């Protein structure tokens, strides 16, 4: 025992030493990387999680050119704060500095000079889970006012007349609406509430109790809150999520294969936040050119919300990069400015072509031009920065023709909405929230017919039988049935007077009690009587 013990210890030591040696060898091999290009320096940024995925794509694309860019998404507020504290080289935020945040703390860049530069656009999408006969509704349409009322708890049931009207008479089942909000401070919430505040102040402001936007949506009534877009999406997609609706970036429902709401625009069409619909809307975005305003160089989206183009998605917005433009910026060097310039030149131009695949949208010409004006400030702050060959005419952006800025390529390539998406027509049977890379050509309204199999009643199997026998018990929607013939996506809910949802529970639990009683009563009775006999004998 005593003689063998040192041997085993020695052996384990040897093994451990070998392991450590192996690990450090691997570490050395992996750290032996080719040296970076000389002209560039590593730059760091943080901020919006909304833009993180496309930024990671761009970062990986420019890596081949020797640019080392790092980005971590801790949220827009964190990104603004870190930038203001000189911790990062750039920040990404969906909203400009607010001066003061919701909790009264200072929200400004301090003394750091900066400019807002648009980098990527996208639409705030509304995703939902409403099941009819166990099948997910995939073509819901809502007007802006209905959405505002849903999120301010004025419309609380999916069979509300306003929702029925938006869907051209198609009735959804009686199901309470559960709005899913973001519990953390979020740029998505800020974008959504900006729109609410601008478009429906009479609905939003009494609910909020204040005016203006907020990054923290007030939680009232049935609403539930989840941290982060991913968790909002998971809450909606969960098995208990029937009846929920929430606002997230378009990429989340697309990745999760969940539908998004088609929102009514000013031209009377219900549209999805596809890359083209957002880009078309953002051609109406204005940039605040009033140098005395605290919101100098931030966006004015009023024109976007009320754009008259049939294709425009009203809740379109874009996120900003906070660009350190100061000549004496304590973090910036020529190499860093050059890296940032070239990184952004790539992002604003070629990088935009990757936006659609991720559920974002390319910036239209007006915003790219505005972006270049801002980017130029880096080279005016430091003349050593090379800006030659990097202007908007050389830009390979998919929404305009490089070299010919008068041509409106976007208007040509963006597909028109289908006729069935018009207010008072349809609704279309096509699914929403599908891959945004392959937009359907305009006027594509081909939906595979299902024959007459459409009207499937609610989930109660016991209640389906009386439909044919006793038509008076069913409150069917007569118009809906005619529409349903060319639909693949939804069935028509038929609510039966005899089959109310509340009754299932009552009678179900009665049946359960009965069942358990039948099984347990004999044994319990036998035990009781045996005990009684025993007690009598004992007495």
């Amino acid at each position, binding site marked *: 025992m005593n003689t063998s013990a040192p041997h085993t210890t020695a052996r384990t030591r040897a093994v451990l030493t070998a392991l450590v040696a192996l690990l450090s060898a691997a570490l050395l091999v992996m*750290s032996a990387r080719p040296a970076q290009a000389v002209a560039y320096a590593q730059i760091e940024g943080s901020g919006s999680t909304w833009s993180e995925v496309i930024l990671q794509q761009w970062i990986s694309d420019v*890596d081949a050119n020797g640019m080392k860019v790092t980005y971590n998404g801790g949220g827009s507020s964190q990104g603004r704060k870190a930038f203001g504290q000189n911790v990062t080289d750039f920040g990404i935020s969906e909203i400009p500095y607010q001066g003061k945040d919701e909790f009264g703390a200072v929200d400004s860049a301090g003394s750091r000079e900066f400019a807002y530069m648009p980098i990527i656009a996208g639409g705030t999408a509304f995703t939902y889970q409403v099941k009819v006969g166990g099948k997910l509704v995939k073509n819901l349409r809502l007007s802006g006012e209905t959405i505002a009322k849903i999120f301010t708890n004025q419309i609380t049931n999916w069979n509300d007349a306003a929702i029925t009207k938006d869907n051209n008479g198609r009735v959804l089942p009686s199901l309470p609406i559960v709005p899913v909000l973001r519990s953390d401070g979020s740029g998505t919430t800020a974008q959504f509430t900006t729109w609410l505040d601008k478009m429906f102040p009479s609905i939003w402001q009494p609910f909020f109790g204040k005016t203006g936007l907020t990054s923290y949506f007030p939680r009232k009534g049935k609403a539930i809150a989840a941290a982060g877009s991913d968790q909002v999406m998971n809450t909606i997609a969960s098995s208990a999520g029937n009846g929920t609706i929430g606002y997230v970036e378009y990429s989340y429902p697309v990745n999760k294969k969940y539908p998004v709401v088609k929102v009514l625009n000013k031209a009377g069409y219900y549209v999805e936040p596809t890359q083209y619909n957002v880009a078309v809307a953002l051609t109406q975005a204005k940039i605040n050119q009033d140098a005395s305003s605290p919101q100098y160089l931030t966006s004015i989206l009023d024109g976007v919300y009320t754009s008259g183009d049939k294709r425009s998605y009203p809740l379109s917005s874009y996120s900003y990069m906070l660009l350190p433009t100061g000549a004496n910026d304590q973090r910036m060097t020529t190499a860093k400015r050059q890296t940032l310039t070239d990184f952004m030149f790539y992002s604003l131009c070629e990088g935009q072509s990757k936006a659609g695949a991720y559920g974002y949208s390319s910036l239209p010409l007006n915003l790219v031009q505005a972006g270049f004006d801002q980017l130029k400030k880096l080279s005016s702050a430091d003349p050593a920065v090379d800006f030659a060959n990097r202007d908007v005419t050389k830009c390979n952006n998919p929404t305009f023709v490089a070299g010919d800025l008068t041509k409106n390529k976007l208007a040509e390539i963006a597909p028109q909405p289908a006729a069935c998406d018009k207010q008072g027509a349809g609704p279309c049977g096509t699914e929403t929230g599908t891959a945004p890379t392959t937009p359907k050509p305009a006027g594509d309204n081909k939906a595979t017919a299902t024959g007459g199999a459409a009207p499937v009643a609610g989930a109660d199997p016991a209640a389906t039988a009386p439909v044919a026998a006793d038509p008076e018990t069913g409150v069917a929607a007569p118009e809906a049935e005619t529409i349903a013939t060319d639909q693949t996506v939804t069935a028509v809910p038929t609510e039966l007077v005899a089959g109310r949802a509340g009754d299932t529970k009552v009678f179900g639990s009665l049946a359960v009690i009965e069942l358990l009683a039948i099984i347990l009563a004999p044994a319990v009775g036998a035990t009781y009587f045996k005990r009684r006999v025993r007690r009598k004998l004992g007495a």
Partner: protein
Amino acid sequence: MTIELEHAASQTPVGRTATLVRSEPASNDVVDDALRRQLSTTTAEQRFELAGCWIAAAALSWLVCARLMPWDGTVVFVLVTFVVGVTLIAVITSLDAGRPEVSDRLVSTVVHSAALLVGVALASTIIFVLVQGFGGMVHVNTWVDDMSGVGPRDPLDRGGIAHAIVGSLIEIGIAVAVTIPLGIGTAIYMTEIGGRFATIVRTIVEAMTALPSIVAGLFIYTTLIVGLGMPRSGLAAAMALSVMMLPIIARASDVVLRVVPGNLREASLALGASRWRTVWHIVLPTARPGLATAVILGVARGIGETSPVLLTSGTAAFMVTDPTDGVMNSLPLFIFSTVRSGEPLYIDRAYAAAAILLLLVLILFVSARLLARPRKGSR
């Protein structure tokens, strides 16, 4: 305890007649094994009853969940099965046994189910992560490559998380190097030197154990990064982790050092050793396995922490081996930033990273245990 009592009773005849009221034979040597009541084992009939009850419960539960009530989902099914099963066991047992046996069976069912629940929770966590991460882990590049030049939609056979593994190891290495001397030193101070000030230190250490991890991150962020202008780096992250780990190691070491027998110290001091020699040669070697546990607890806390590193390290997509030179990445941070993106391939990578983190923690723990084994030959 009772056996000793019985022995004492059997030796004194007076006690035997006066105090023993049990019908069972009291002394060990005269008992026939067949007569002895087996308390811990079950008969075949009992086992049959138990199995029957659970099968019946599962069947009933299916009937209730799937047919009668609009409850779907595994959780509801398991809950209903449990309630019905416990009821059935109670009823069936009460058919031919008395109240004590019924309550015994019920309690043992509940206790066993609780143990099962914990086991299932642990096993499902590990299995789920390993299964989900398998797709990423089978690629060699996941282990040896970094994410530079790899976009969110690039397939899993490109890019890897070597930079995060290395970053995690470096950060935790620095944190351990900082916290072991400080933590064990604090513990030695509290146990060996003592005094009024030691009580204050102990109170502070205990209060710091409950420190929310984000506060540790914020502390380093405001002092080192914003205050002193240090860049976000692996070193800053390691400092934040040290703040998290120090109280855990100090507290656990304190408990371990306190159980070192006092007479060992006295013997050493009596032989003329100084206080320092006593601590170094007697107290610390005696407490070695316990101190290893303390370090393991600290590392366990540190290696999985996301929030302190979130603010302090930044996320590099490429390999960084110098902890003082700018942003770094680590496994928890990599998992956090990719799993929330909603991108399916990123989520796969995150699971692979989580599985690798589990393996890494396992390797660290096993090697710490092996290194800290008490030397058999030396005692």
